[in-house]
């Protein structure tokens, strides 16, 4: 249902989320982010361009990392979201609490700014 791929570019770990995240699959997103943090990446970008659906279980995963990333000074930035997915974040007001950018270039730029 969800496929997760990770690639590394310029010191950032880019987690691509492909498909749908619901209560049955949110654990995979959680594990991927935990792995990225565990491997010591200092910038984590989440590519949402192939994310077709996210329910509260997936939103909860992102939310649960906000404090940890702040404490560890690791920028966690989501980018490339489709409108229907972005709307889910907006309904909850999570769009203001998370770092969300239009595309990878802007996400990298913000990661660089936040890492200084």
């Amino acid at each position: 249902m969800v496929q997760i791929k990770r690639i590394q570019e310029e010191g950032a770990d880019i987690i691509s989320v492909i498909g749908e995240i619901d209560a049955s699959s949110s654990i995979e997103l959680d594990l991927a982010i935990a792995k990225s943090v565990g491997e010591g990446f200092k910038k984590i970008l989440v590519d949402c361009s192939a994310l077709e659906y996210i329910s509260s279980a997936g939103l909860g995963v992102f939310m649960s990392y906000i404090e940890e990333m702040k404490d560890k000074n690791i920028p966690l930035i989501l980018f490339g979201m489709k409108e229907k997915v972005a709307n889910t974040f907006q309904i909850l007001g999570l769009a203001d609490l998370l770092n969300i950018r239009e595309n990878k270039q802007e996400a990298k730029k913000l990661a660089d700014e936040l890492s200084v």
Partner: protein
Amino acid sequence: MNYQYNIGCSLNNLKGIREFIRNSLKDQDVPEIEMSAIVLALDEMCSNLMIHAHHCNPEHMLELHIEIPKTGKFIFEIIDDGSVFDINEFNEPALDNLVHQKRKGGLGIRLVKAIMDDVEYLKRSNKNVCRLTKVVRPE
């Protein structure tokens, strides 16, 4: 027109629920943003029931009914015989608190309340009926 879907309480069935809702509403001129929101709210309600009232036992069944209106007021009913959890009586904690506590839960109910116009609970033939109403204006 009415549609009905019966599903076992396994989280692996959520995808089927989402497809059923989309298929049932596909000819109703529901704007995509509204469609996605409705699908989301019903996914949230069903997964909540599956997890909290039925402990993900696939032998326990949920019935999902969709009533397609002439007036744009869609009615969705989720019927089961588990314990009732009335989301209207649940006060959602502030978002800041959830973030602070690094909690993953607590968002689903907030979504349902934001998306649906009305959520009510009734009893019918000894079963619990959770009725969600959504008014949709055509594109």
